[in-house]
């Protein structure tokens, strides 16, 4: 049971256990006890082999109890004076103990971030199997509410139509704004940010991206290198009209912190 203790180079427990077994064997008179003794010998010799292996590893062998102690320290344990028993040091772990370890751990992994599905426009009839997978994923993503826009439920019914309507609506707003004062540039951030809702802000950015894609609006940088948005002057939306600059794709990321 106390495997690690026995292996510790400072421990003579294995020797003591063997000596004790020897003494006990003298009293053995039944087969069952002899079998137990044999079982014990197997265990003991396995342990002996492991102990010998540890001696072979050059220089310093790994001390797991020291590692455990250091981990507890990293986790922010509050050590107490009173020790419960020999093998378990006293102390309380804070509730974010493992998060602290995890925070450090992430630096050592090339883990693909768990993808949170935000919004998508589908082809008019997505295959049934795929829908099922995505529904299941959405159901299990209760915590992702902060990223999922509030209107997602409605969206599931008719993605494309709803998106198109929203995009048109936003185009209308943009045009009205622009026409009311053509000389003042409209700050992109002023346009998309909803001061009361992070998810609405993200939604707005999403819809604006359609306008950009379709050439109905364009984003430029003003003298302060801040993005401004305006409806495009030309109404030709054909693919051929895209000049060299038009193929640019931009990724914008906005965290909730930044939004605040």
């Amino acid at each position, binding site marked *: 049971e106390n495997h690690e203790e026995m292996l510790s180079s400072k421990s003579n427990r294995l020797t003591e256990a063997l000596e004790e077994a020897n003494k006990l064997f003298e009293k053995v008179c039944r087969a069952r006890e002899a079998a137990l003794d044999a079982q014990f010998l197997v265990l003991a010799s396995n342990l002996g082999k492991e102990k010998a292996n540890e001696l072979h590893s050059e220089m310093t062998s790994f001390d797991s109890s020291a590692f*455990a102690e250091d981990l507890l320290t990293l986790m922010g344990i509050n050590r107490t004076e009173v020790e419960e028993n020999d093998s*378990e040091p006293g102390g309380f772990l804070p509730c974010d103990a493992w998060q602290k370890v*995890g925070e450090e*751990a992430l630096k050592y992994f*090339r*883990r*693909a971030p768990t993808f949170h599905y935000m919004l998508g426009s589908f082809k008019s009839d997505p295959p049934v199997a795929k829908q099922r997978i995505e529904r299941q994923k959405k159901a299990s993503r209760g915590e992702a509410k902060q*990223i999922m826009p509030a209107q997602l439920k409605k969206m599931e019914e008719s993605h494309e139509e709803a998106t198109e309507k929203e995009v048109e609506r936003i185009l209308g707003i943009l045009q009205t704004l622009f026409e009311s004062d053509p000389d003042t540039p409209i700050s992109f951030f002023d346009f998309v940010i909803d001061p009361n809702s992070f998810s609405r802000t993200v939604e707005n950015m999403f819809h604006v991206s359609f306008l950009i894609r379709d050439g109905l609006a364009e984003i430029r940088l003003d003298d302060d290198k801040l993005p401004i948005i305006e409806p495009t002057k030309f109404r030709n939306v054909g693919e051929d009209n895209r000049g060299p600059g038009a193929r640019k794709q931009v990724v914008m990321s906005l965290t909730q912190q930044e939004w605040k």
Partner: protein
Amino acid sequence: ELVQFLLVKDQKKIPIKRADMLKNVIREYRDACMEIISQAGRILQEVWRGRGLLGWWPPQGLTLLLPQTFGLQLVEIDPKLHSYILVSSLPCAKANHPCRAKEKEKMGLLIVILSFIFMKGNAVKDSTLWEFLRWLRVYPGAGHPPGDPLKPPPTPLSRYLKITPVPLMDPPQFSYQWGPRAAQETSKEEILNFVAKVQGKSPKFWTSQHNEATASQ
């Protein structure tokens, strides 16, 4: 479509089988299967090169918004079963993804287990592992964080580990080693660095482990 499928399937961190890809997405395009898969892999990687994803992918007209852009690699992790995982192609320390608390806790436990296994010579018995975890207040079956991720049936955490029964043991015992996903997402050198950092020592302190870690580069 396949890219979308892969990204969604990867959420559970369970390897994605090629058979599933065929059944759910590729279907009638079976013959072009490998080409489609490698094309999907290229798209996932290209995101990293700054081409961005706010917009569209011809010809399906998919639009996705991702919390942050990153590069991903599609790696075949089991040539027999033809299953794949997604791995980040950004170097370790730079990748700074948003990560939820529960995920962090799991990664914390995982790195501790992987470290223990490696430092103890690449394989440990389950009894040994649990004895060690007891010191860290982690017990089998306990509900409190980070829970009991080690028991079969396989959970996302145990995909990182290879668990094999030890022959001739009664009651049955298991041997824990690194699994294929662990080998893909991290390395012995990285894990040694972690241990060194926790213990405030140089990685060279543990000579044989250090030799092993640097030899496999």
